[in-house]
């Protein structure tokens, strides 16, 4: 139990997927200008990332490893993620239209989000067992959502500030992301 808690803290804060591992920056900078979209994206990512983590773990453990074709990992994972997103989209559209209306536009974008693929790769590289893989992918996803929402809050203010022209938008967003990653050093060593 203790190690699961440590793993969670580590994956949410210490090794935050966005700020410490440089994964998922395009949506981070792309959808953080408005709090509403940021929250939508965060939820969509949490959803898909957890599912992707679990599915790729299963594929890796029960297909790639037994048949000794681990070199096909990249192809296999991306196919799993792409079809997963497709199914989630179809499922939500049919059964939970309200949720689909909220998350729908973000789902296709997630296919090529390197945070999702990255988490899948990390889980399998670290050779976690199933429970740890599940906890880690959930925690990474929460870390992503947390960073995204915090960032959107700061970004809303930056949009109202007198940022010099050449720095506006993405440039200042990146600098701010850097400062945030600096602040996340606070959690160093805690897990």
């Amino acid at each position: 139990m203790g190690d699961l808690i440590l793993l969670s803290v580590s994956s949410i804060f210490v090794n935050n997927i966005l700020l410490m591992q440089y994964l998922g920056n395009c949506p981070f900078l792309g959808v953080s200008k408005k709090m509403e979209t940021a929250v939508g994206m965060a939820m969509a990512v949490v959803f898909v990332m957890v599912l992707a983590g679990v599915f790729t773990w299963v594929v890796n453990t029960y297909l790639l490893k037994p048949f000794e074709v681990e070199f096909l990992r990249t192809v296999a994972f991306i196919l799993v993620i792409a079809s997963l997103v497709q199914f989630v989209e179809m499922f939500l559209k049919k059964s939970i239209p309200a949720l689909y209306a909220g998350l729908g536009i973000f789902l296709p974008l997630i296919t090529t989000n390197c945070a999702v693929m990255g988490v899948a790769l990390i889980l399998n590289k670290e050779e976690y067992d199933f429970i740890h893989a599940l906890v880690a992918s959930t925690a990474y996803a929460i870390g992503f959502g947390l960073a995204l929402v915090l960032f959107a809050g700061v970004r809303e203010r930056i949009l109202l500030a007198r940022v010099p022209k050449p720095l506006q938008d993405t440039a200042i967003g990146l600098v701010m992301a850097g400062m945030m990653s600096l602040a996340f050093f606070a959690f160093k060593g805690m897990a």
Partner: protein
Amino acid sequence: MREMIRLFVVILIFSAVSGGLLTILHSKTEARIEYQELKFVKGPAIKQIMEGSSNDPLVTRFKLKDDTEERSFYVGIFDGDPNIVAFETFGKGYEGDIGVIVAVNVENDEIFGIGMTTNKETPGVGKRIETDVDFRLQFNELSIEESIKLRNDGGQIDAISGASLSSGGVVAAVGSAKEIYKRLKPEIIEKLKGFKT
């Protein structure tokens, strides 16, 4: 439905072609990759420890089953005697595991030398476990029976200043190496005999 099947078949064909091509490429490169991996990951540390040996420890190696795990052992032959055996263990560092190659002299059960393999320690801070020679040399000739600890914890190893966590990781790795060695010593001795020239 027919359409769905058609699309599915298309993807299947793409994937099959892709898998086939990659399998061919993989089989052609497999041996090379394995050697490269050895050379770059563990090679430098092993070579460093075994400097002056008359053999290539990366080639002179054997595997043993330890519980469920399979471990590789690298043999150093000095003056014709295959007395040095090296293997990799891990300890928790500042950021993730620190891989350490520990070489033991089976003659006197003393540590012959250690070297670092993989770690994610901070450059300039924790990375000094790799670059700081004095730190590494402190382990030489410590006995397997001795308890090895950092000076802060009442032991004999001076930590690298500012990186006591990384230093502790190395110490922990050496500690687990001692256990492995003790556990497998009979089989190791047995195997080593085969390398005598």
